[in-house]
């Protein structure tokens, strides 16, 4: 039986049958007649002058159609980046600045031929000094880019909007706190290491040029296909309305498919040059070394507070690794950390984030993007402080929260207005749960197996659901893509003459379940059955204009636009139904596939009958326009600020340093929930990626800038066997910035996870004198921490 769906109902993901049977369509599935294949010659050096490139042998190889270098593409310009940032040449131009940088592009009839020709290109390099270490980068010991005076691109400070004088006053105030004799000051230098965002589907681009119609079609595994189309239009000089961007299914993105890539411009350019369809799909190694990486902070956090748990000030000074070039959001990512720098707390907070270039791959958005880093530093030092003063870490947090009475619109110490929050209630829910009591009991139980046990907790707040279009004024636009840029959400709802509905959206899922969630939003509003609602996405030919899927924004922003579009359709349909049923518009209700008069369920008309009237305008009530579709644009007044509490229980084998997670729980609050199953799924995946960072993952570059972890053998990602069952529950504090009261949930799991796990491991090792273990907490590092603590005891 097909039913309509209420918001808050569990509906199984409609997209899954196709996806899990391998019947979904991905970019690499496209095989077009006469299609050429691309492979790149990539730099073996992290920093070098290119002294010569000889492509003659490659040109002569079987099947090779073209071999391009910087000389051929220089006129297209640099890959767009924001002000203060250093843009990437589409192909390395005279110099390479990270291992794997694309130097030569080869096009051949088969992929293997292209790869063979890559091996035949002879490029010579003259190595230059490399900048790998973040402290050395900050000290400008060597410079990454010739002609740029400093490796530091920008320094973000907080409180936001406070100038140097104000920051100095704050410093003086904090110094006074530190001088008090009733306080302790706790400080830790910690690494939030570089990560490789591993999507199951590597990035892939296919371009088709129609010389006759002067139209470019770009298929890309992108989270922001509208921005890709816009960039292609701008950089290749094609009117936007002659570029069609298509992102079919996207097999995982996590932010790494948000930024614009040089290949997304090179492939369409080559398709036009050669008048042939062109495909490029990354190899797994290219995905590791040439898709953006995430995180990469080295910082010191410091807390000063009283011995009874009142925090007076929190400071963080960190160096943030931008890599060699900037993609569009690179320098903005640490700034997203500034948004949540003071977490849920009301104490004075000072932040300084120096964004430096290095000879490594670019960093950009990776699940959480700046916010997991910021929350990590804050919540680790909260834990260290609690331990120092011997107080329960949960009680210390309780004591320092911004009170619920300050909402809505509480102003955080770092200078941002937050929508809604009730942090103490959320944490209390966790503390009162039987799961938490069980973890506490397990922690304190004596063990016979020689394992150490630790309980870790932390709480988080996130800023997401971007967002207010006023952010553009802070620099959060798709700057320089050669086109005026959008910053909004959108949705289009059309009821067809037969009563079915099409929902057309510009954001696309990379696993988030848009097909299901959007159908629920529309079904709930219109009373049309779920199976009569078709959701399409990912094609700029029909999609309304939006900025895309990232920053946990799709449901909160584009979902809200779709909700409003549904409402417009509903209002019109109510007028038609009222006319047909000879009732008052105010009495019309929608349910079970039609409209009826309140109190008289048999006075009813089906959606098909209403729609038929709409498309035969002579039958419409006087003054009504024909048609039954609506489009809405939405821009919220603020980001949404979800929050939550997380705890886990670990055991550590003291002989080997092996950590295993025994139990995990979280109480998350993302406001109203559209589909609990999908929300839980988002949290599951988010936690798993946070656990991955805490336990295994690290993009390791050696002193010469070689990426040592460029494959999944040496870059282990978390699988189901590495995590326990998650006990999830939630509190519900709706936002007031959108009509559905929903907050983003795509990144929350990740933001809450890593420090919870580190806190737990430190709890287990604290009896041995260990104060901190850097991530990833691979066994060798945990073991070393134990040895070091023993040695200094």
């Amino acid at each position, binding site marked *: 039986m097909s039913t309509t769906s209420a918001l808050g109902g569990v509906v199984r993901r409609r997209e899954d049958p196709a996806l899990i049977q391998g019947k979904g369509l991905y970019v690499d599935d496209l095989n077009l007649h006469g299609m050429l294949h691309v492979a790149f010659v990539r730099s073996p050096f992290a920093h070098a002058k290119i002294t010569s490139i000889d492509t003659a042998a490659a040109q002569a190889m079987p099947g090779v159609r073209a071999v391009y270098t910087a000389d051929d593409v220089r006129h297209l310009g640099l890959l767009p980046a924001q002000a203060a940032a250093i843009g990437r040449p589409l192909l390395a131009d005279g110099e390479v600045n990270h291992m794997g940088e694309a130097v030569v592009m080869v096009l051949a009839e088969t992929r293997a031929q292209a790869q063979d020709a890559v091996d035949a290109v002879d490029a010579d390099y003259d190595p230059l000094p490399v900048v790998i270490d973040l402290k050395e980068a900050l000290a400008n010991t060597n410079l990454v880019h010739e002609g740029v005076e400093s490796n530091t691109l920008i320094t973000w400070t907080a409180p936001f909007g406070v100038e140097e004088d104000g920051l100095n006053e704050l410093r003086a105030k904090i110094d006074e706190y530190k001088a008090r004799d009733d306080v302790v000051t706790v400080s830790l230098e910690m690494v939030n290491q570089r990560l490789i965002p591993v999507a199951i589907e590597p990035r892939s681009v296919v371009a088709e040029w129609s010389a006759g119609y002067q139209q470019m079609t770009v298929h890309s595994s992108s989270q922001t296909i509208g921005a890709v189309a816009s960039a292609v239009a701008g950089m290749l000089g094609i009117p936007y309305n002659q570029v069609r961007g298509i992102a079919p299914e996207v097999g995982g993105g996590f932010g790494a498919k948000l930024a614009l890539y040089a290949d997304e411009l090179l492939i369409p350019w080559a398709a036009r040059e050669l008048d042939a369809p062109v495909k490029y799909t990354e190899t797994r190694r290219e995905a590791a070394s040439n898709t953006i990486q995430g995180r990469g902070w080295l910082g010191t956090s410091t807390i000063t507070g009283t011995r009874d748990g009142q925090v007076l000030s929190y400071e963080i000074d960190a160096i943030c690794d931008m890599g060699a070039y900037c993609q569009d959001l690179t320098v903005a990512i640490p700034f997203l950390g500034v948004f949540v720098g003071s977490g849920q707390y009301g104490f004075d907070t000072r932040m300084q984030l120096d964004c430096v270039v290095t000879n490594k791959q670019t960093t950009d958005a990776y699940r959480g993007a700046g916010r997991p880093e910021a929350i990590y530093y804050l919540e680790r030092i909260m834990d260290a402080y609690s331990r120092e003063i011997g107080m329960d870490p949960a009680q210390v947090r309780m004591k320092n929260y911004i009170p619920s009475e300050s909402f809505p619109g509480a102003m955080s110490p770092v200078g941002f207005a937050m929508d809604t929050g009730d942090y103490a209630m959320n944490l209390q829910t966790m503390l009162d749960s039987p799961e938490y009591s069980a973890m506490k009991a397990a922690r304190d139980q004596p063990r016979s197996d020689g394992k150490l046990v630790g309980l870790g907790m932390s709480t988080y707040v996130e800023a997401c659901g971007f967002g207010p279009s006023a952010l553009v004024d802070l620099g959060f636009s798709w700057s320089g893509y050669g086109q005026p840029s959008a910053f909004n959400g959108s949705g289009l709802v059309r009821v067809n003459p037969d009563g079915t509905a099409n929902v057309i959206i510009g954001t696309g899922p990379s696993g988030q379940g848009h097909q299901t969630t959007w159908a629920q939003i529309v079904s709930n509003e219109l009373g049309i059955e779920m199976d009569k609602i078709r959701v399409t996405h990912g094609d700029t030919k029909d999609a309304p204009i939006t900025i895309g899927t990232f920053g946990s924004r799709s449901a909160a922003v584009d979902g809200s636009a779709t909700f409003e579009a549904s409402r417009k359709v509903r209002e019109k349909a109510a007028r038609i139904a009222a006319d047909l049923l000879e009732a008052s518009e105010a009495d019309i209700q929608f349910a079970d596939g039609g409209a009826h008069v309140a109190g008289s369920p048999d006075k009813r008309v089906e959606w098909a009958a209403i729609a038929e009237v709409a498309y035969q305008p002579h039958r419409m009530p006087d003054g009504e326009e024909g048609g039954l579709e609506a489009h809405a644009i939405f821009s919220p007044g603020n980001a949404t600020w979800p929050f939550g509490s997380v705890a886990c229980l670990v055991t550590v084998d003291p002989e080997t340093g092996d950590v295993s997670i025994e139990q995990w729980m979280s109480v998350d609050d993302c406001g109203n929930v559209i589909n609990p199953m999908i929300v839980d799924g988002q949290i599951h995946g988010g936690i798993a990626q946070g656990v991955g960072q805490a336990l295994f993952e690290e993009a390791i570059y050696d002193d010469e800038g070689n990426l040592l972890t460029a494959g999944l*053998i040496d870059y282990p990602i978390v699988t189901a066997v590495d995590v326990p069952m998650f006990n999830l529950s939630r509190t519900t504090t709706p936002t007031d910035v959108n009509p559905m009261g929903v907050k983003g949930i795509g990144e929350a799991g990740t933001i809450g996870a890593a420090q919870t796990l580190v806190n737990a491991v430190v709890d287990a090792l604290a009896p041995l004198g260990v104060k901190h273990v850097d991530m990833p907490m691979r066994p060798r590092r945990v073991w070393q921490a134990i040895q070091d603590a023993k040695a200094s005891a």
Partner: protein
Amino acid sequence: MFPREFEYVAPSSLDEALGTLASNPGAKVMSGGMSLIPLMKLRLFSPELVVDIARIDGLDAIEDRGDHIAIGALVRHEETAASPLVQEHAAALASAAAWTGDRQVRARGTTCGAMAHADIAADQPAAALALGATMVAASSGGTREIAAADFFVDTLTSALETNEILTEVRIPKSSASAYDKLGRRGGHTDYAVAGAAASVAMSGGTVSSAGIALTGVGTKPTLAAGSVEAIVGTDGGADAIAGAVARATEGVTVLEDLYGSAEYKAHLAGVYVGRALEQAIAASH
């Protein structure tokens, strides 16, 4: 990545396969392909001809041969792990196979392939060494037997000649053996950061003989001769085990890699020699 161009044959008989190998010095045997194919895709290794032995009949059995069990060339990791014969008489190998890779790898990779591949961090070679296995290598010129102790030569190098196929591994029955390791993803998951296998025979309360082997710590899976010397002739009690632990890496070159310093790996070698011995000795009671 895409491999360089290569020829591929899938002979249906052992003789045909051996003949092909004899006449093509650039040929490479493939069984499960779990290690060979990744190397070829990365172009780290580019054979001219791949001889896929998966369609040869009669190589997929685990047989009880009285004093030993024989594991054929096409027996997959998961079959080795699940075999009651292996579990009863070669528990160390059953565990090592069960903890090799993931489900997909265990469904395709072969126990003999893991031996032939001779990875520095592979699981089953350590079990084969501790159990005193014999490798049976066939070529067009005949068959020879190679003791496990002589089989693992160096990093990714076994004693097999390029024209030989490892047709079976023979494992002398042992009622008291065990394998334990620390996987690269923690617990038993993934290749070994370090691991050890032990097999003991007790008579009259004394350890009368033992085999102990390490993996993950050096350039190849290797015997821990010092530990064997320390444990044989003792009562197998805690002190005796401690003695074996202390000598775990005697004569073994321990190397640092991404997963641990030499110091850590040497320490782990001891930890796992201790754990494997404890379990093996417990099983003998």
